[in-house]
């Protein structure tokens, strides 16, 4: 996907003026948050599980090479094949090769953020393949030719009315007088249309929430069961995933699964949790004849051991996004690339460069709500600050900001001068603004006064009054 992260500010303007988007964002603001809170409250050991989940991932990441090799060995033993891909391009090429070798025409896809990261659909289509998204949200945005705006609810920016209009346009062979007002009617229609496609598919591509080193299994969680049909019916199953998804054994995967759905949607468990281990065996009734795993690195190994290593614990639950007031204001597309919200603000600069995505870690108030709900206890604000430090060191931050900070620091490091200068400035402001109590406009403060009044300072600074009080042994009146 082509990034527009550099144009973040323009994207924000567009988003704030998009009435449909603003209406749709209300859903995120309310639904997810309450449900997560209730699910967490119902489970007394929830906080302890978060610690356990963090520790499991930290351990795995510290021995990543070991667990990845163990995983590969197990996959191979079951008759599957692991393909290591250092870059997005390698991963895409590999997948196209596998599809060509299978003489594929139709490819069904379960939801996968890695597929988004490597812009897989566009490449498969270029290679002449008919690609069908089977997750409802992904299906909707595929019809609309849009990227996802959320990592677990890709079409959360679309209203019900818009979906209805899309379905009427693209499902033109269905009776025009049919009813499509209710969400269940939309779901049923999508199900009907997609059902045909599952049987036509030659290759099924899914992501993976976890890779289990002990068994060579990949695990996906879905609420629609679409992933199961995608991976079982076609003759080839490709798992597109990335190296940090591995965990040592099934118990570890289960421990993390217990925090995943609760954090994401407030469910105890997702409706379907599906393990796939190699191709169909002689005694199996169903399953693919060939089983491939594409293991993408794409910059992740470079994050190991560095300032951003904690980010590799992320299980893509979306809780940080659901709780982010900046996301609530502008939605996912404003972030300009695949991963939105706080997790995107940390991850995106790692994957596509801070020159391109430098706005993202700056567009945060450091309110800390993301970190407080992250099941993997990832210190998201701290890592955004790391990015800001790197931008500052490399002189990527705006000149006006650097200049302002230097001037301010010059005074802040000289308390006497600071006291004198601020004393003068505040007296002046107070003299001018006391009558109203506020300023409608202030020079150099347009960012503030375009949208709100600026309160008038009271007058004499605390320092000045305190010093006088010390001298007189009493508070001035």
């Amino acid at each position, binding site marked *: 996907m082509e990034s527009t992260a550099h144009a973040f500010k323009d994207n924000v303007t567009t988003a704030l003026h998009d009435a449909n988007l603003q209406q749709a964002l209300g859903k995120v603001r309310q639904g997810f948050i309450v449900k997560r809170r209730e699910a967490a409250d119902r489970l007394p050991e929830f906080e302890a599980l978060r610690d356990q989940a963090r520790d499991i991932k930290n351990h795995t990441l510290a021995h990543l090479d070991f667990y990845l090799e163990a995983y590969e060995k197990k996959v191979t033993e079951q008759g599957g094949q692991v393909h290591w891909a250092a870059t997005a391009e390698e991963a895409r090429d590999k997948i196209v090769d596998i599809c060509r070798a299978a003489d594929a025409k139709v490819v069904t896809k379960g939801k996968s953020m890695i597929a988004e990261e490597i812009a897989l659909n566009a490449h498969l289509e270029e290679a002449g393949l008919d690609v069908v998204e089977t997750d409802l949200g992904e299906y909707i945005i595929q019809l609309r030719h849009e990227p996802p705006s959320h990592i677990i609810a890709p079409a959360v920016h679309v209203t019900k009315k818009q979906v209805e209009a899309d379905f009427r346009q693209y499902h033109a062979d269905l009776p025009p007088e049919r009813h499509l007002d209710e969400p269940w009617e939309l779901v049923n229609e999508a199900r009907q249309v997609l059902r045909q496609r599952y049987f036509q598919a030659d290759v099924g591509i899914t992501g993976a929430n976890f890779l289990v080193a002990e068994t060579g299994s990949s695990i996906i969680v879905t609420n629609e069961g679409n992933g199961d049909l995608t991976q079982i019916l076609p003759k080839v199953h490709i798992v597109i995933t990335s190296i940090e998804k591995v965990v040592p054994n099934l118990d570890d995967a289960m421990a993390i699964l217990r925090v995943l759905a609760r954090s994401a949607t407030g469910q105890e468990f997702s409706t379907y949790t599906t393990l796939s281990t190699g191709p169909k065996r002689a005694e199996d009734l169903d399953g693919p004849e060939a089983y491939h795993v594409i293991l993408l690195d794409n910059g992740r190994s470079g994050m190991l051991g560095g300032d951003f290593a904690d980010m590799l614990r992320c299980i893509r639950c979306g809780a940080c996004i659901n709780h982010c007031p900046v996301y609530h204001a502008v939605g996912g597309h404003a972030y300009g690339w695949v991963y939105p919200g706080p997790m995107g603000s940390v991850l995106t600069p790692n994957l596509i460069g801070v020159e391109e995505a430098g706005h993202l870690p700056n567009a945060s108030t450091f*309110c800390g*709500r993301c970190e407080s709900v992250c099941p993997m206890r990832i210190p998201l604000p701290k890592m955004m*600050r790391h990015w800001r430090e790197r931008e500052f060191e490399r002189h990527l931050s705006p000149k006006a900001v650097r200049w302002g900070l230097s001037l*301010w620091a010059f005074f802040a490091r000289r308390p006497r001068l600071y006291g004198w200068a601020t004393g003068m400035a505040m007296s002046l402001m107070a003299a001018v603004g006391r009558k109203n109590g506020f300023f409608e406009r202030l020079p150099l403060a347009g960012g503030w006064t375009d*949208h*709100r009044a600026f309160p008038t300072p009271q007058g004499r600074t605390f*320092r000045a009054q305190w010093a006088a009080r010390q001298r007189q042994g009493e508070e001035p009146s």
Partner: protein
Amino acid sequence: MTCLVDLMRPSVGFAAVELLERAGCDVEVPLSQTCCGQPAYNSGDRAHAEAIARQVIEAFAGFDYVVAPSGSCAATIKHHYPQMFADDPDLTAKAEDLAARTFELVSFLTDVCGVTAVSSDYRGSVTYHDSCSGLREMGVQNQPRQLLASLDGVDLVEMEESDVCCGFGGTFCVKYPQISNKMVSEKAKRIESTGAELLLAGDLGCLMNMAGKLKRNGSAVQARHVAEVLANRLDDPAIAQPPSSAGQGEG
């Protein structure tokens, strides 16, 4: 003393001093302090942030406790200073020592001084905004509510999403004014729908942001730092209000 209180609203500083003195503390305000360095730190300017942090560590050496009428300044000292000097064990030790002595005002009053009730002449309905750092880094949530509940004349009406950021975020509000405006607009709606007459919070930055928005919207809701009500320092006009609104001006 936080820089915003020093410059914009010294009455909050005096309210804090009064509350601490009534709780039995000896209060000193070293004038060798200026600011905690948060603007530099959050902008990625480590060199300036560290220089200012050293100055603060010096200024507060030797005091039993360091108390700030702001969750965010207190959090900078308590949680961020100790991380700043990773390669200087001596300074790290000093920063940790300071961190252990540093508190946000209201939680210090209740949790350390054991204050359970205060008195104030304020009569009316109030709503309380949980500032982000105070809430999530300093654990300030029940303490101000507990003290407000001890006031007979005060009726606390909770707003929806009182724990959601108001969009101030220090330099954020001028770097990304459109997003900040959207956030503070949402906040103003929630404040107004409580019907409360007075908005309280523990951080002046957030208060200036919210009060400025309410003013621009033409709202009648007034805003004060929670310490002003708790210390019964109500003579000064509320934030962004003209002198007449409180009967008499300061000075």
